[in-house]
C-alpha cells in the first residue's frame, strides 16, 4: 500500500490539451473517487497513473518514487477495466492466477491466493468456467479477483460498474466498499455517477474539462460546493439555481420579485449572483413573504415526493418526505434555512 502524488500533470494528444495541470495527493489507504462528466479526462488521468498513457508534463509519484518513466508492468498497480478485459481463452482460475504465474510463484502459493480471493468474491464455484460462461456481475467479480490476488500497492478502477444493471450496481458498490474497508489498499475509482462517488469515497475529486473543480469529502462537497459546477454536479435531483442581482434586503430576480436574503454581506450590492438551494432543503411555509411557486409535475417515489414547479419564470424542484397532496397548478409557498442556501458569483461561478 502506498500513497500517490500527482504534481502539475498535463496531457496533450497532438495539439489538443486534455488535462491542464492536475495536482492531487492521494493518501495511503485512502479511497479516492474521480468524478466528472463524460470526456473530462478521468480515464486519461487514471491511465497515466497506471502507466498506460505517457505523461506530457508534471510528475506522478507512487510512494516516494517518481514513476514517469516506469513501465506499467513495473509499477505494482492493479487495475479493473470498464469492460473487465478478462482473457477470453483462459478459465477464471487462469485469469486470476496469470499475474502470479508471471511472478513464478509456486503452485501451492498461487492456489492458496486464488482460492482465498475466490472465497472473498463468491467465485469458488466458477473457477473452472471460461469468462463467456459468466454473467456480467460474475465477470466483474473475476476482474476484481484478478486485482485482488496481487497485493498491489494501488488499485485503479475505471467505471467498473457501468456495464451492470441498476440493482447489481448498488450491490457491487457496497461490496467494493466493504472490500476496501477490509484490505485498506489505496484506491482510485473513476465514475461519472455522482451517487457512486458520494457513497464510496473517502474523498471525491470533481473534474471538468481537464481541470479539478474541487477536492473534498462527500459531505464537504455537498455542504459547501466551491463553485456552480460542483453545486450542480453533486446531489440528485440537482440543486436549484435562481439568477438575480443583489439589492437592498435581498436578491432581485429577473421578473422583479425580491427574494429576502438574511446575509447579503456575502456579496456586494448590485452584483449579479446565482442563488442555490437543494430540493431537499426546501420546506412548505404559510408565510406569504416567502417564495411563491406554481406546481407543474408531481412525482411520488414512495420514500418522498418530488415536485417540479415554476418560480419567477424559472424551473425549480422540491423534495418532501412528508406526504402532501399536491396538484398541478396549485400555488405553494416555500422557505428554507439560510444556512443551507448557497450564493455564487454569476460571472466566475465561484462561491461567495
Amino acid at each position, binding site marked *: 500500500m502506498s500513497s500517490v502524488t500527482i504534481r502539475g500533470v498535463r496531457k496533450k494528444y497532438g495539439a489538443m490539451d486534455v488535462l491542464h495541470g492536475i495536482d492531487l495527493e492521494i493518501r495511503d489507504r485512502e479511497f479516492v473517487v474521480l468524478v466528472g462528466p463524460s470526456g473530462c479526462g478521468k480515464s486519461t488521468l487514471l491511465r497515466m497513473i497506471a*502507466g498506460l498513457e505517457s505523461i506530457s508534463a508534471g510528475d506522478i509519484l507512487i510512494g516516494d518514487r517518481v514513476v514517469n518513466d516506469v513501465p506499467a508492468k513495473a509499477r505494482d498497480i492493479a*487495475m479493473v477495466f470498464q469492460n473487465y478485459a478478462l482473457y477470453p481463452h483462459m478459465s477464471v482460475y487462469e485469469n486470476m492466477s496469470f499475474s502470479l504465474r508471471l511472478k513464478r510463484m509456486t503452485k501451492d502459493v498461487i492456489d492458496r491466493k486464488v482460492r482465498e480471493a475466490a472465497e472473498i468474491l463468491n467465485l469458488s464455484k466458477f473457477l473452472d468456467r471460461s469468462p463467456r460462461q459468466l454473467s456480467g456481475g460474475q465477470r466483474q467479480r473475476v476482474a476484481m479477483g484478478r486485482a485482488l490476488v496481487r497485493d498491489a500497492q494501488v488499485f485503479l478502477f475505471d467505471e467498473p460498474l457501468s456495464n451492470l444493471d441498476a440493482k447489481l450496481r448498488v450491490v457491487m458498490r457496497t461490496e467494493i466498499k466493504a472490500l476496501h474497508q477490509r484490505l485498506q489498499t489505496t484506491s482510485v475509482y473513476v465514475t461519472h455517477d455522482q451517487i457512486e462517488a458520494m457513497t464510496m469515497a473517502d474523498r471525491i475529486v470533481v473534474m471538468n474539462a481537464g481541470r479539478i473543480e474541487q477536492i473534498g469529502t462527500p459531505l464537504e462537497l455537498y455542504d459547501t460546493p466551491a463553485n456552480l459546477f460542483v453545486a450542480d454536479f453533486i446531489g440528485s435531483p440537482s440543486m436549484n439555481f435562481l439568477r438575480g442581482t443583489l439589492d437592498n434586503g435581498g436578491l432581485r430576480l429577473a421578473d422583479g420579485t425580491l427574494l429576502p436574503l438574511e446575509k447579503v454581506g456575502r456579496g456586494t450590492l448590485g452584483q449579479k449572483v446565482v442563488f442555490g438551494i437543494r430540493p431537499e432543503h426546501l420546506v412548505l411555509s404559510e408565510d406569504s413573504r416567502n417564495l411563491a411557486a406554481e406546481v407543474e409535475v408531481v412525482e411520488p417515489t414512495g420514500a418522498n415526493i418530488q415536485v417540479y414547479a415554476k418560480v419567477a419564470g424559472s424551473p425549480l424542484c422540491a423534495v418532501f418526505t412528508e406526504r402532501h397532496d399536491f396538484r398541478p397548478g396549485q400555488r405553494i409557498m416555500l422557505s428554507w434555512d439560510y444556512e443551507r442556501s448557497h450564493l455564487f458569483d454569476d460571472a466566475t461561478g465561484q462561491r461567495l
Partner: protein
Amino acid sequence: MTSKTTRSILYWAILSPLMVVILFPFGVMFVTAVRPRAELFTYPPTWGFSEFRWENFSEMWVKTNFGGALLNSLYVSISATVVALVLSIPAAYAMSRYRFAGKGAYRTFLLMTQMMSPIVLVLGLFRLMMALGLVNDLNSLVLTYAAFNMAFTIWMLQSYFNSIPRDLEEAAWMDGASHLTSLVRIFLPLAVPAMVVTAIFTFINSWNEFVLALTMMRSSEDFTLPVQIYAQVAGRYQVEWHHVMAATVLATVPVAIVFSWLQRYLIRGMALGAVK
C-alpha cells in the same frame, strides 16, 4: 409440404446452374481418371466406363514422377506460408497498434500491389532471380509466393487484430507481463483464427500457382505439381489423358478435403474469439 422444404427446394433450384458449372469439370476429371485407356475418346461421350481402374493412379505416379512434384509443391507451399505469416504478423501488429508516419500510404501501397498480376512482373522477377542466382531453385518460388501473398495477409490480419480489444494487452501489462509475454500468451492465442485463415489462403495460392513456377523452374525434377501436370500435356505427340486426370485428382482432392475439415475448426475458432 412445409414452407421450409419448399424454400429449400427453391434455393437449390436457383443454385443448381452454378453447381453444374462447378461440378462438371470435376465429374469429367473423375470419370476420365478411372477409365481404361481405350475408352478415353468414346463418341458420343458418356459418363460410364467398363472397368474402374485404380491402376491408372499407380501407373501415373511412376510415369509422371508425381511423388517428386508433390514433395516440391509441399515444400514450396508450406515454406511460403510460414515465411508470409512470420513476416506479416509483426507488420499487421504494428499497423494495428502503433501510430507512425506514412501508415495510410503504406496500406494503400499494399492494396495497389494486389492490382498487378504476377504475369506482368514475371520478366522482372526472372531477372531478379537470375541476379540472386536462384533460378532453378525452389526457394525462388518460396520468396515470390510469400511476397505476393503478404499484402493480403497483412490486410486480413490487421483487420482481425483491430477487433482484439487493446484492454486485454493492457490488462496483461498491468498484471506484470512484458510486451513480448503479452503478445505470446494473450494476443497471439486470440489471433489464431485469423492466422489459420491467412495460412490457408497463402497455402492454396502457392499450391495452385503456375506462371511463376513455369518460368523459374527449368529442370523437371524441380517442377511443382501444376507445372508437372502441364508437362504431361504440353508439346506431347500423345497425351495420356487418364494419367493427367488421375494426377489432377490427386493434386486437388486431398487438399480440398483437408481444408474443408480445417474450415470447421476455423468457425469454432472464430466463435471462441468473441470477446465481451
